[in-house]
């Protein structure tokens, strides 16, 4: 950071020591390094934007600031003193307030009751004092909060204001807004942005996490970019102000997705035979309603040829899961056609689609893909209960099931103490192998992978990717949904980008793919 002495108030505060500072913070989870020696300084009077793909380590970083997790290495300094944040309560007491992505209020309670939560249990909440304090905060920050409203009846933007008030009630000096705009309308986003500016002007240090670059440039003073757990760059206020939006976008996209023009040209994916076979999966105008408040799928059309790998890129929660479930038959589509080998299958159930060769590997291995308490052998047949030769006239034939399981465990290299071991006791990588074995056995024509390497360690990631390549090479059509751009660039023939339920565009996986997919992901039309 270069020290400049311009006359602006912001510049003068940045020269002051940071309120909160993370120094060389590392956090490991089994098989992954979520944060790798990250340095981050939060200054009073600044909106500090944190950018990065899913899995870049933003949430872990926030978790450590909010007291949900403790760093394995490195230190956290508040006003220059080393501090170990023991709990979320401790974080609040230290003046670090967090507004999480998903609203954390009790919907059936009034706003006042929600704000009074967390006080000592033996004391009756002091309503008058609370009202006075809220009025003071509302006046000074230009917020409007109705204390008597039932929280669940407020809009998401209003609920977020309540959460911000709650954080301010504790005299927070640092306010973290985790993907606060992801659920808001454009008008709500502008309002929140204006509020962030006011909070910063009053001397708070605001941390703002977003996926949208335009918001980062409009509301932020300083931008830090995380990638694969490491902080790969920081744009200080002086520079950010000097850059125009196009130049800033180019710089951030480069930081987030790690491509320099030279790199992108020199690191072409391994050559694959051009795929020009007939379409195995064809989807026309598919629309799927999403769960409350999140996007479903809107008029998606694409096709995947035999032996082809089509990637679906996009930030998590933009309709990828709904797309996969509609294709597999788990979710009812509102409109559109799905064809497998030219044959409409939109009206068929999960079992019938599976028998025709359409397979779906879910991203939720334990909660959806398997029954954790059941043995490996039964989980391998979870989608074929009652089928011959494993069941005869409805009665189980344990010898056949054991033979089938032994064969698959060997050929897919599942490391398990035995076929009777409950699948929930295996590691993530081995559970994934069980799922692979189940979905690939017996006449697969097309396979949908949803985040196949999510949460795996490096060895298993490599093995899974090798397996996906082999599957495609054997002439199976592969739809690969992933939030990791590197994975898609490594494996796919073409990459479609999904954003708010729509396919924003499809690009061939050539040298320019990294940049173009990155642009589509952050909302820039190519």
């Amino acid at each position, binding site marked *: 950071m270069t020290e400049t002495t311009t006359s602006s108030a912001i510049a003068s505060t940045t020269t002051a020591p940071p309120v909160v500072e993370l120094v060389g913070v590392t956090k490991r989870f089994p098989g992954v390094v979520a944060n790798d020696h990250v340095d981050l300084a939060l200054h009073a009077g600044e909106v500090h934007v944190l950018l990065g793909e899913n899995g870049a380590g933003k949430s872990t970083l926030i978790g450590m600031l909010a007291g949900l997790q403790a760093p394995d290495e490195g230190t956290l300094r508040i006003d220059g003193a080393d501090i170990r944040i023991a709990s979320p309560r401790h974080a609040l007491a230290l003046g670090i307030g967090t507004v999480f992505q998903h609203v954390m209020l009790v919907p059936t309670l009034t706003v006042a009751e929600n704000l009074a939560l967390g006080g000592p249990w033996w004391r009756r909440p002091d309503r008058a004092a609370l009202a006075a304090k809220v009025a003071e905060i509302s006046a000074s920050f230009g917020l409007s909060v109705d204390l008597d409203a039932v929280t669940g009846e407020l809009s998401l933007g209003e609920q977020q204001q309540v959460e911000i008030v709650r954080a301010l009630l504790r005299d927070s000096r640092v306010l973290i807004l985790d993907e606060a705009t992801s659920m808001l309308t454009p008008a709500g986003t502008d309002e929140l942005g204006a509020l962030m500016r006011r909070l910063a002007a009053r001397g708070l240090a605001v941390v703002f996490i977003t996926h949208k670059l335009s918001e980062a440039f409009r509301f932020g003073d300083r931008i830090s970019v995380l990638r694969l757990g490491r902080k790969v760059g920081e744009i200080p206020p002086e520079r950010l102000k000097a850059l125009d939006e196009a130049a800033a976008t180019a710089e951030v996209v480069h930081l987030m997705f790690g491509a320099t023009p030279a790199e992108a040209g020199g690191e072409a994916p391994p050559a694959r035979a051009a795929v020009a076979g007939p379409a195995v999966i064809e989807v026309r105008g598919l629309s799927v309603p999403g769960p409350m408040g999140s996007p479903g799928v809107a008029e998606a059309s694409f096709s995947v040829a035999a032996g082809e790998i089509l990637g679906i890129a996009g930030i998590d929660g933009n309709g990828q899961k709904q797309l996969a479930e509609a294709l597999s*038959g*788990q979710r009812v589509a509102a409109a559109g056609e799905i064809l497998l080998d030219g044959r409409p299958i939109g009206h068929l*159930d*999960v*079992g019938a689609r*599976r028998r025709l060769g359409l397979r*779906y590997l*879910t991203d*939720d291995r334990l*909660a*959806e*893909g*398997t*029954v*954790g*308490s*059941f043995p490996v052998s*039964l989980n391998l047949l*979870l*989608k074929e*209960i*009652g089928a011959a030769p494993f*069941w005869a006239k*409805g*009665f*189980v034939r344990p010898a056949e099931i054991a033979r089938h399981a032994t064969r698959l465990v060997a050929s897919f290299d599942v490391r398990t103490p035995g076929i009777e071991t409950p699948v929930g006791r295996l590691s993530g990588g081995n559970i994934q192998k069980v799922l692979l074995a189940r979905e690939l056995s017996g006449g697969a024509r097309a396979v949908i992978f949803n985040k196949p390497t999510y949460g795996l360690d490096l060895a298993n990631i490599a093995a899974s990717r090798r397996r996906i390549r082999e599957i495609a090479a054997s002439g199976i059509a592969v739809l690969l949904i992933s939030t990791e751009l590197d994975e898609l660039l490594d494996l796919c023939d073409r990459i479609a980008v999904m954003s708010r339920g729509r396919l924003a565009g499809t690009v061939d996986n050539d040298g320019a793919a990294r940049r173009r997919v990155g642009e589509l992901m952050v909302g820039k039309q190519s």
Partner: protein
Amino acid sequence: MHRARRSGNGRFAAGVLHALVMTVGPIAAALVLSGAVLVAVGVDPLAYYGTIVERGLLSPLGLQQTLTRMGPLLFLAASLIVAFRAGIWNLGGDGQFLLSAVVAAAAAPVLVGVMPAWAALAVCFLLAAAVGAVWSLIPALLRAYQGVNEIITSLMMTFLGVSLANVLVKLVFLDPATTVPQTRTLPVADRLPRLFDTTVSSGLLLGLAAVIGVHLMMTRTAFGLKLRVVGANPRAAVHAGLPVAKLTIAVFAISAALAGLAGATDVLGVLGNVRADWNPAYSLAVVPLVFLARLNGFASIAFVFLFSVLSIGGESAARRLGVPHYFTLVLVANLLLLLALAEYIDHRRRVAKKA
């Protein structure tokens, strides 16, 4: 790791010993705790337990009554095992039991007049199963298609079912020949046959067949496995393409039909009629038993036997010592709590050892 691998035999013996301590310990503690309650209300616990053992287990007549009582309880255990293993909390067994009992009691005396007794009994059993299943339809549909919590709906259907059963006895199926409001009585000769030269009703055998049948269905058939998948992980069931809604309705129907058969067994084997305001509430009493048995069919036979001894002996003790007969439920409750406590401590100990 270095703590030397024990021989297979040694480990097996240790396992058996552990299981024994984990079962016998809480039972002994429950007896002591319940004994303390008895002392507190001024009853000699030894006299109470002695009466129960003597009247429920040792005296020939008592033992026969105990075995007879097992019939309907075993059907109810089967009913609950099907439901609980499939993750469906059918707590409406008492309503299903009572309505089926009333319908069977009303139909039997009429049917024996027009067909052979065995055929009449068979028809009555079918009727009872159908009535029970129908009474579960509302909770089943609400759960399957609207996700409404079946604990509440099935319990509420029990209140309605008990009241409706009373209305039927008092207004529709009333025996005009008696002054007490009750249904017509099925002659003893036409009831379920007794076993050999005893007073034990053959309902015991039917109940045993039901529990074992259900156990085999859940462990050996594709249908049972589908139900277990739905119970263990409903999202995996959807993912695997199982028709969760239809299976839910099927589970309710089977469970409620078995509860209905329990009612028919009690009426056609033992009582011969249903009196107004009769409600033994067996189903709720069996709920803790099947949990103690961890939803295992064979283990629940043992627990049902234990409970039958307690309940037959408890009825005698109530007359002799003035302890209300539902004190047996206090005993069962204590046992359940202490077993849970033992399990909790054991789990904590194992976690501590691992760490």
